[in-house]
């Protein structure tokens, strides 16, 4: 039942917004519900780690450690996003001279978005997972095109076309898995449940699973933003309202990756680790190289963050390629850390854009001197994203490198390191131009109100905390890793 509650919570928030016609109070209710999701997720996590997975809603939903971990990630980041979303809605209302219709639409869509992501990670069944992910595509399409500018329309068109094709391929892959499952003697009703897949996987036809997994990596990879179907990502992220970009980059990508992770577990049982590993390494290195090359001469800081996401997805894929338990744990930690840091950065960049009126890197100068709060958060967030301590991304990246070496993928780690150094050089150059330098004018603009600054700083603080202290997570990470890595 508790799982149903989790799914209900975001809808509750959406309903509140609908009822309150997007007034501030109702928005706060939504924030509260997302907070509740986080808390509930943590509670379930404790339970699941203690005494095994739980399922609900007539076996449609199932929560093992991995799903719960993803629930926590979604909860945390949706909390941040909806919190700053209040500001976005307020701005929207100003634009629409007071009418709160569209802002309430926005609020509801965001809640629905969160709800579908939760469904995706809690689904016990591959098909339901697929439906949920496709649904997120549709919902976010509206959110991306929310501004109705030419740019946002173009972005949402590209987004939905490319993602739908990708997801369709993923569906074909799912069909093949289903076929394999049926032939392996699964009963058609439960054949698509993760549990039964894992049970029967060793009897699946290898040739079919090869097709299936390749298509799934290609398809869900589109959603993850892995090369070669990544192209929608920079456009969508740069055009969507900041909280939406935060949600997409922070969780949507990783929710899609969660699917790949699950299927990888099945494939490894069916084919042995080799096949999935090769495929993922290729994709990962491709994405890393691409992100590195396109960050060098980047001119738009939101796109910069977007390509940075592609880089991190590549790293995660590389970690998953290694596949041993250590690596998977690192991947999950990375998912959480990247989610926090990246969403904070997108939210901050939204504030910066609202303040400076441009998303061009050349348009923003001497931020640290003029807007210490925003500039500081942005700078520290970049430090976190570049994988420097004390933030958790450093630890996870380090552990991933270790894992690569342990499974003999050291060469891939070396290439990844090269790409990361190039990215570091590029990003540092851009950040330097944006942040440093003397103040142009003497008077400082008003800093953002405390309730805006709090979640941003809080998010980074958490990211730093989990980078240094293990105890809150280690158990959960271990359990979650055990789910997909034998």
């Amino acid at each position, binding site marked *: 039942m508790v799982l149903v509650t989790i799914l209900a919570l975001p809808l509750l928030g959406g309903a509140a917004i609908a009822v309150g016609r997007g007034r501030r109070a109702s928005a706060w209710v939504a924030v509260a519900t997302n907070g509740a999701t986080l808390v509930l997720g943590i509670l379930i996590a404790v339970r699941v780690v203690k005494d095994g997975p739980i399922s609900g809603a007539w076996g449609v939903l199932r929560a093992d450690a991995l799903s719960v971990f993803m629930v926590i990630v979604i909860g945390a980041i949706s909390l941040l996003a909806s919190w700053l979303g209040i500001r976005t809605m307020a701005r929207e209302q100003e634009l629409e001279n007071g009418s709160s219709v569209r802002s309430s639409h926005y609020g509801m869509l965001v809640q629905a978005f969160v709800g579908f992501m939760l469904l995706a990670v809690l689904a016990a*069944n591959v*098909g*339901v997972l*697929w*439906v949920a992910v*496709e*649904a997120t*595509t*549709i919902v976010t*399409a*509206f959110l991306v*095109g929310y501004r*109705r500018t*030419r*740019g946002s*329309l*173009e*972005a*949402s*068109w*590209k987004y*939905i*076309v490319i993602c*739908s*094709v990708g997801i*369709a391929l993923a*569906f*074909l892959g799912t*069909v*093949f898995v*289903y*076929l394999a499952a*049926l*032939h392996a003697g699964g009963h*058609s*009703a439960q054949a*698509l449940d993760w549990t039964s897949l894992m049970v029967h996987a060793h009897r699946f*036809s290898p*040739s*079919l699973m090869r*097709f299936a997994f390749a298509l799934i990596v290609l398809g869900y990879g589109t959603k993850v933003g892995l090369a070669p179907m990544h192209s929608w990502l*920079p*456009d969508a992220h*740069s*055009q969507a309202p900041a909280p939406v970009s935060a949600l997409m980059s922070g969780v949507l990508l990783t929710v899609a990756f969660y699917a790949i992770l699950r299927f990888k577990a099945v494939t490894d049982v069916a084919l042995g680790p080799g096949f999935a590993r090769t495929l993922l390494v290729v994709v990962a290195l491709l994405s890393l190289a691409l992100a590195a090359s*396109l960050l060098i*001469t*980047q*001119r*738009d800081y939101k*796109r910069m963050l977007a390509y940075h996401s592609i880089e991190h997805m590549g790293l995660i894929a590389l970690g998953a390629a290694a596949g041993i338990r250590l690596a998977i744990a690192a991947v999950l930690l990375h998912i959480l850390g990247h989610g926090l840091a990246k969403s904070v950065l997108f939210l901050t960049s939204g504030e910066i854009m609202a303040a400076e009126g441009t998303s061009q890197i050349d348009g923003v100068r001497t931020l640290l001197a003029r807007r210490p709060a925003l500039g500081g958060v942005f700078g520290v967030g970049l430090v976190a994203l570049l994988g420097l301590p004390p933030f958790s991304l450093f630890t996870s990246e380090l552990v991933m490198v270790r894992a690569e070496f342990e499974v003999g993928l050291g060469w891939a780690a070396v290439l990844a390191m090269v790409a990361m150094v190039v990215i570091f050089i590029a990003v540092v150059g851009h950040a330097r131009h944006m942040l440093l330098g003397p103040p142009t004018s003497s008077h400082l603009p008003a800093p953002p109100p405390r309730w805006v600054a709090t979640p941003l700083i809080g998010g980074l603080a958490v990211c730093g905390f989990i980078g240094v202290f293990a105890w809150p997570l280690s158990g959960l990470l271990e359990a979650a890793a055990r789910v997909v890595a034998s």
Partner: protein
Amino acid sequence: MNGSSYSSALTLAAGAVLVCAVAILWLASIRSVIRMVAAQGLALGLVAVVLGVHLHDAGLLAAAAVVIAVKGVVIPVLLGRASGGNSGSRESRPLVNVPASLVASAALIVLAFVTGRSVARFVGTTAGALVPIGIATLLIGFFVLVARRRPTFQIVGLLMVDNGIALTAFLCTAGFPFLIELGVSFDVLLGVLVLMVLSQRLRIEFGDVDLDELQELHD
């Protein structure tokens, strides 16, 4: 029905799907293309019906009904209405012209048959033998997405990809559990709806555009 008629019916229906796909590649005027899409949807539904009758699978028949309703009727109608303003408009200068597209489609079909064979052999049934057709439809749909400029054409391409996959699904697994099938078609419907809304907005905002004029966003 007996085996031979079943197999011939199935082959006919599936073949129809593929033929429609090639035809779409060949046609230029949007109205006729939409008709073709409707035809393809119906053919797909027919495949489901034949399978359902053959396997006495009520769920499959229900799915067939859904498919026919959504892909054969609703979507084409909506498409027609969406491009109603200028349904006479044509794909005047495609990125890949018609002859080249047909050649390409031929190549794609060959590829589909080469790759689909292993799956077909695996499934083993008469239906399974037709899996390559599904894959071919998928590939041609993808090709349409790449090669055609008009927004409506991209929607059509998307539909074709979807039909191809649905066909494959029907042929090799006799369809998904009904609920999921429902969810899938619902998603497709929604996706197409969103795209149509978007294309309308595009037209409202900047008149009658080709998609490759949308190149503002890049590095």
